[in-house]
């Protein structure tokens, strides 16, 4: 079952597979996302009490668009050779900022954002490293389908590691 509060994790799936074909690209995108989304979140936190709900959406869009446009220009000026693969995801950063603004709040917004940043960073850096290592021998790992398969394997390994003890303890429980 997917909890309604965890939909925002699906948000990071696109760049997680799309931009992780090299470790440097993955880390660059993650860093840019962390910088922009936290700057966006902080600015919105300042503005939020002074705006109506409708104005909040407009403010979030304007702010995200301006930040992403600046990041886009800076990326073109300094890392043009990587810009070709990353430019799509700079637009995604703006989208994710606006979507995060609409997070249904059960826990504090900042806490959810921080946890998402941590999980996203951990996954994208391990996936990037893995794909770069395997990619030399198995070209499939560098393509999007290979990225999905590896992501699935990573999550399965994580599940296996975290779930096995609890299941065995369940089995060993004496039955009435």
């Amino acid at each position, binding site marked *: 079952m997917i909890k309604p509060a965890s939909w925002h994790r699906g948000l990071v799936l696109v760049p997680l597979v799309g931009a992780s074909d090299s470790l440097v690209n993955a880390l660059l995108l993650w860093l840019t996302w962390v910088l922009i989304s936290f700057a966006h979140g902080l600015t919105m936190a300042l*503005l939020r009490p*002074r*705006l109506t709900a409708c*104005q909040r959406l407009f403010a979030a869009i*304007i*702010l995200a668009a*301006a930040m992403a446009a600046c990041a886009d220009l800076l990326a073109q000026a300094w890392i043009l050779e990587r810009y070709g693969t990353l430019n799509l995801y700079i637009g995604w950063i703006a989208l994710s900022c606006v979507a995060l603004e609409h997070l249904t709040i059960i826990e504090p917004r900042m806490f959810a954002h921080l946890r998402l940043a941590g999980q996203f960073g951990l996954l994208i850096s391990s996936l990037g490293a893995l794909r770069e290592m395997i990619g030399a021998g198995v070209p499939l790992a560098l393509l999007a389908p290979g990225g999905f398969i590896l992501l699935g394997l990573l999550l399965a390994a994580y599940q296996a590691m975290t779930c096995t003890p609890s299941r065995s303890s369940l089995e060993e429980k004496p039955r009435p």
Partner: protein
Amino acid sequence: MKKTAGVAILTLLAGLGVGVTYVVQINTAGRIEAQRQAIANTTLLDVLPSGQYDNQPLAQSVVAAAVVLPHSTLLNGYLATRGGQPTAVLLRSQAVGYEGSIELLVAIDPTGRLLGVKTLRQSETPGLGAAIAGWPSNWLRMFQGKSRQAPTDEGWALKKDQGQFDQLAGATVTSRAVLQAVHDALRYFDEHTARLTGANAHD
């Protein structure tokens, strides 16, 4: 009350956003253009082994206007030099392939030997003629070391046409067009060697 304050904040935000983006754009425009140029240079010049030139070959054009050759059109020519000595001439040539025009960059050393051929633009059939794209291309590599004299003019043809070159399987028209364009470029170089390699003597 909250509404008017909100509109003011929104207007301020929009103005600020546009302004900052504009300033960033103005300040990065020059650098972006320079980066574009540098990348365009490297994609053109990787046909030459690194260290073979120390000038800016693309700034040193040796063909003033396009020249029509028997099977192709010579669009441009560049001279690469090292320490003032010519090391290679790059001829940019356009031929008609199976699907459309093919643009090639042919690198020739001062003695007339082919250093390499690179496809700059093509729209040939994927899986067949499109094997000329990409760098390095295995099929184009067979031209390396050839010159106008070796093989002779009769040898400069596909095996199908009693020549000595293998063709790309299933892409006779593409193979023939590329081969004839390369041969044209070599012949042009042979006939104009002095002018093509001596252009820097005036500098």
